[in-house]
């Protein structure tokens, strides 16, 4: 297709680099530097989308981020699909493939268009609440098709082929927007030895100056931009970012900036490069120079392709050398838009007329346009547009000076393009992100940033300073304010400027053009193009009682598209205000939340996907586990072997049975390195232990270990473990795997805030020691083969003793402690030797059929013995008394202990508390699901009175029956009673209350020869 709308010269495109791309299956050309939008306009493409409700053809309206229609699904391959890309932002590259997200199944031949008329009836304002409501079960079907037809794009089904990154910045000043204000502020600050970031959303710095014909310092503005950029680039403390959208302004001047690094280069980022970077910027100051978006006027059939904002046309002419039509009608309520008529005229194409809604415009630029011989109709407006797939003409009429009604005769003008300008809306979004409301300025008919708390300054048109001289001066003032506040020394005064002030006549407060017919019968006048919200829809919402702008927005879905109503929201508010006969500020302001534009999930995620999503903590023996069939369980961030498959495909229960039997019959080996280990030193260490544990520690001798329970102040158990006395003032505490950090923090908290007078230090040594537990009747025999320097005799090295010696040639501390009820040793060696000792044990253990086992077997074995797991059998509402662990409470301590008072509360001592007991099913093979609730009578009237839940439930291969622990109200006094566990499937499991110690109740197994 030829580029019929490409000008012979001009535009910042590389005409030597011709690029071919595909849009909706058709091939088009453009040049390096074109956006999809500029290239499509150059080729004379009118329709880029179908509208949401009415299926009307839509064209490109704007040139930037405010574009509501030209929304693309990008990507040739499944893995590179990207939804909701704006044609006005996406630069073309060779082979780019995209299609409209709207207009399923196609935007040119859209069967929706045929049904558009009644679709509109089915989808009135508030349709979510009105139609498709019945029958309710069909909603999911309706929704699927509504969403598909609505065209919200789709996410890829394959995982993203690209890489994304996050980069942190700590800087002094972030300048948002590299238009005239941003550039001059950066220039002025660059002499002050501060770290600056200048972030520009588009591909090129310069903003409005790139399509301006004004001079700065007597030279073309573009020359000034070039010179300023050259100086800034030379400064190592200035970071310049293009294609970088400042999307979120968060508390404490934390700002997120989304840089599209390679989106303009190819489908997939070049090898090794991140496709997008999320810059996380922490800055002392922000200068917000984000500029303003031109808003269109609202008039009949204002969505026909060929209707555009005035400034967009100028941008296409100046930056891309593209003129999107032949015959222009320009409607405006202000002076500024006249520049577009001049630009169009200077391209040698016809300006049919400028239609100015003001009764008597006499500004300098109006005179200039008149002198060019262009028709200027004053006090008139375009009330309707002719054409369906492209503008063919407009209907104009006189309007009252108030703008409320049409007067006189209607005239039709032939044209193919309608530009409109209703003034400018400052891009106040970022200033709102931290909760500040914008304020209305009557003189410029726009919201400007409101009051603010953080160090944020505003410069240029975002603050309503549209005139270049004022804009530059405000930016210079911002820079100077920072220099003054921070007492910075400036080497050289930069950024002085000379600009001729272009005096403009005031804007007319007009947003929506009246029609000869009443609102409900007039041609459709669109306010929000992406969501098909019309003036009559807003009118209806108001008549139905929605008077707050927040309600109107939600009812009509105005501003709810991917464009977030950048073009239409202010017009919509003005229409609501008009309908309610209120002023705009009385109707309210809308506010904005991050993000300013949609951000790809990949960018938010950055590197933190797959294995990097969350740290996996490994022990020193992890590789062995992987190589020997371990399946892993997450415990906190640790990966612990859950069970080991003896052969691929071994069933879990088979593996557990095998492991459980091996431990009880011979010997098993487990990696216990993940248990938290805290080294405690100091003369008051023993006293401190006595205060944080419920039991006594005063007499624990060197060489001994003791089990302890820790409670919160409320008396509820929160962790447990064994602590060894290493020396008079030196202890080693173990905690649960998941509780390690919490316990260390708990100890520090009480030491630092309650008992700073105690001389004690706590240090984590969890990672320093590799811990290997060997359990089973043959454990001693196995250990004796590798152990030197420890007398392993059962009376010399007793249960709850620890000894130092050599294991497999490595210095070790060996603890005779048991969580399985078997003869057990826990070997601690410096972790660098962990793998060596583990492997040596495997070799020596062959003759005992040494079996590695994981956490699940450990759980079964401890449950056979009735040992609790803090966090599984406790839930923060259980005292040691509820667990039957009154033996663990010491009342002889001179100082209290944490939880003592809490568990003495009357509620903790009352009768009928839930107590932990064993539960034995009547049918021994039946397992009760954990969490099941016990009842006395399953046939009692609802609601059933629950007695307590099952906390642990396993099948014990050693006992060849199911075992369980659980809470039962007053359980200690109900041994032998029958209780029932009703299940969701209607069955009822019958069980008996028993002791939680199912295996070896006398503890003989721990003392085998």
């Amino acid at each position, binding site marked *: 297709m030829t580029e019929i709308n490409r000008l012979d010269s001009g535009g910042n495109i590389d005409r030597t680099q011709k690029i071919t791309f595909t849009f909706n299956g058709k091939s088009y050309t453009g040049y390096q530097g074109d956006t999809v939008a500029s290239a499509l306009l150059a080729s004379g493409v009118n329709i880029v989308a179908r509208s949401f409700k009415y299926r009307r053809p839509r064209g490109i309206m704007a040139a930037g981020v405010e574009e509501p229609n030209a929304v693309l699904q990008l990507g040739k391959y499944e893995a590179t699909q990207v939804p909701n890309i704006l044609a006005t932002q996406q630069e073309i590259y060779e082979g780019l493939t995209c299609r409209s997200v709207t207009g399923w199944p196609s935007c040119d031949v859209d069967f929706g268009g045929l049904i558009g008329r009644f679709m509109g009836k089915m989808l009135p304002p508030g349709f979510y609440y009105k139609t498709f409501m019945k029958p309710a079960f069909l909603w999911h079907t309706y929704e699927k098709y509504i969403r598909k037809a609505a065209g919200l794009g789709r996410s890829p089904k394959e995982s993203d082929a690209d890489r994304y990154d996050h980069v942190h910045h700590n800087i002094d000043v972030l300048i948002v927007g590299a238009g005239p204000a941003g550039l001059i502020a950066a220039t002025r600050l660059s002499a002050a030895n501060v770290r600056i970031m200048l972030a520009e959303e588009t591909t090129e710095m310069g903003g409005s100056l790139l399509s301006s014909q004004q001079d700065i310092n007597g030279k073309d503005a573009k020359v000034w931009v070039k010179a300023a950029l050259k100086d800034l680039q030379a400064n190592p403390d200035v970071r310049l970012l293009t294609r970088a959208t400042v999307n979120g302004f968060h508390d404490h001047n934390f700002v997120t900036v989304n840089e599209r690094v390679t989106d303009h280069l190819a489908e997939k980022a070049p090898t090794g490069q991140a496709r997008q970077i999320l810059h996380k910027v922490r800055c002392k100051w922000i200068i917000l120079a984000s500029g303003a978006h031109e808003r269109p006027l609202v008039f009949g059939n204002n969505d026909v392709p060929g209707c555009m904002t005035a400034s967009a046309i100028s941008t296409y002419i100046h930056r891309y050398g593209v003129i999107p039509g032949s015959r222009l009608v320009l409607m405006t309520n202000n002076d500024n838009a006249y520049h577009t008529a001049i630009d169009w005229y200077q391209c040698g194409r016809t300006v049919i007329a400028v239609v100015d809604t003001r009764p008597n415009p006499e500004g300098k630029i109006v005179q200039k346009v008149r002198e060019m011989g262009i028709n200027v109709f004053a006090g008139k407006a375009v009330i309707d547009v002719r054409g369906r797939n492209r503008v063919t003409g407009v209907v104009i009429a006189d309007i009252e000076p108030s703008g409320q009604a049409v007067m006189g005769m209607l005239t039709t003008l032939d044209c193919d393009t309608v530009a409109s300008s209703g003034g400018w809306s400052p891009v106040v979004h970022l200033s709102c992100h931290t909760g500040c409301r914008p304020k209305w300025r009557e003189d410029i008919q726009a919201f400007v940033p409101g009051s603010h708390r953080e160090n944020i300054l505003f410069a240029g048109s975002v603050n309503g300073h549209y005139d270049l001289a004022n804009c530059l001066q405000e930016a210079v003032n911002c820079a100077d304010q920072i220099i003054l506040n921070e007492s910075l020394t400036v080497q050289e005064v930069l950024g002085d400027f000379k600009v001729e002030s272009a005096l403009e006549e005031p804007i007319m407060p007009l947003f929506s053009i009246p029609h000869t017919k009443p609102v409900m019968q007039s041609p459709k006048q669109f306010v929000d193009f992406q969501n098909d919200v019309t003036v009559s829809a807003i009118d209806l919402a108001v008549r139905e009682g929605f008077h707050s702008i927040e309600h109107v927005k939600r009812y009509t879905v105005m501003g709810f598209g991917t464009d977030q109503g950048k073009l239409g929201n202010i017009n919509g508010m003005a229409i609501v205000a008009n309908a309610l006969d209120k002023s705009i500020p009385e109707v309210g302001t809308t506010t904005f939340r991050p993000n300013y534009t949609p951000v790809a999930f990949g960018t938010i995620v950055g590197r933190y996907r797959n294995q990097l999503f969350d740290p996996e903590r490994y022990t020193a023996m992890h590789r062995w586990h992987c190589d020997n069939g371990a399946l892993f369980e997450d415990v906190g961030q640790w990966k612990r072997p859950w069970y080991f498959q003896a052969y691929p495909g071994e069933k879990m229960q088979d593996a557990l049975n095998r492991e459980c039997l091996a431990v009880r019959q011979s010997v098993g080996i487990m990696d216990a390195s993940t248990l938290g280990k805290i080294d405690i030193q*100091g003369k008051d260490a023993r006293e401190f232990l006595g205060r944080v544990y419920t039991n006594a520690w005063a007499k624990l001798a060197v060489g001994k270990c003791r089990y302890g329970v820790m409670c919160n102040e409320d008396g509820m158990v929160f962790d447990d473990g064994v602590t060894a006395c290493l020396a008079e003032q030196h202890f080693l505490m173990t905690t649960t795997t998941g509780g390690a950090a919490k316990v260390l923090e708990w100890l520090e908290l009480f030491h630092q805030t309650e008992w700073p007078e105690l001389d004690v230090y706590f240090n984590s040594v969890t990672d320093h020691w590799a811990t290997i537990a060997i359990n089973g009747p043959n454990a001693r025999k196995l250990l004796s083969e590798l152990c030197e320097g420890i007398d392993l005799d059962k009376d010399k090295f007793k249960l709850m003793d620890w000894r130092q010696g050599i294991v497999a040639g490595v210095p070790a501390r060996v603890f005779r402690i048991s969580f399985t009820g078997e003869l057990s040793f826990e070997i601690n060696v410096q972790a660098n030797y962990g793998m060596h000792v583990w492997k040596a044990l495997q070799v020596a253990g062959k003759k005992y059929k040494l079996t590695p086992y994981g956490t699940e077997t450990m759980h079964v074995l401890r449950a056979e013995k009735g040992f609790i797991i803090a966090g599984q059998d406790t839930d923060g509402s259980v005292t040691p008394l509820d667990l039957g662990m009154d033996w663990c409470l010491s009342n002889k301590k001179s100082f209290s202990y944490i939880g003592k008072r809490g568990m003495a509360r009357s509620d903790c001592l009352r009768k009928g508390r839930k107590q932990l007991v064993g539960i034995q099913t009547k049918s021994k093979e039946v397992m009760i699901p954990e969490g099941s609730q016990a009842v006395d009578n399953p046939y009692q009237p609802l609601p059933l009175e629950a007695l307590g839940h099952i906390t642990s439930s396993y099948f014990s291969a050693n006992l060849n029956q199911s075992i369980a622990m659980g809470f039962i109200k007053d359980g200690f006094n109900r041994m032998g009673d029958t209780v029932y566990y009703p299940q969701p499937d209607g069955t009822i499991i019958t069980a008996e209350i028993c002791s939680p110690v199912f295996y070896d109740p006398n503890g003989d197994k721990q003392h085998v020869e």
Partner: protein
Amino acid sequence: MIQMVTSNMLNDTQHPDEKNTIKPALYALMDQCTSGDVAMESPVVHTAIANDGIQNNGIKVVEEAFLSHLVIRGNVNDQDFISAIETAASMRLPEKLQTSQGAHATIYWVSPDEWLIATNKDAFETEANLREKLSGHYALVNVSGGQTRLLLSGSNSHRLLHAASPYDFHLSNFPVGKVITTVFARAQALIHRKSIDEWELIIRRSFSDYLALWIEDFIISC
């Protein structure tokens, strides 16, 4: 019934035994290294950083494996503590956020009452030497197996840090000799600027596979 069983765990009766009872001492000093020929595995042994390290485009990371790491705890207002450390180590105890460098060791400030000494000398001898000089309230903990030191170097090394951590690594805020402990990727690291383009990272053993993967992911794509 529960009481009967579990009280076995609490067996507290002491059976004094001349041969086996540990000699009374205030602190349990233990030589944890073997003199024998025993395979040691550093925390990053199974990662790309092992052996010669990993490098690309002006960033290099190598491990300085098997150093002795000792945590020192004590009170900065206790002059005896400070002079004992300084005499024993023949090094200054660094001020807040600083390091001090000796011929065989670096001492890193970690927190107001905590330092880390990393040395290529034997951990046991170093600890014994320090304990000999120290008295009063202090703690020394051998953590050599629990962490390792990486050396990050190269003209682009700061880029890796800026991706990994929100901290400000600009020379004006992070001069040579400074040390911090901060978030690094989704774990933590002690970070010391050894020279303009050289950074020491001390990471925990259990997080080292994750961090090595992260570092590798960054370096191959930088």
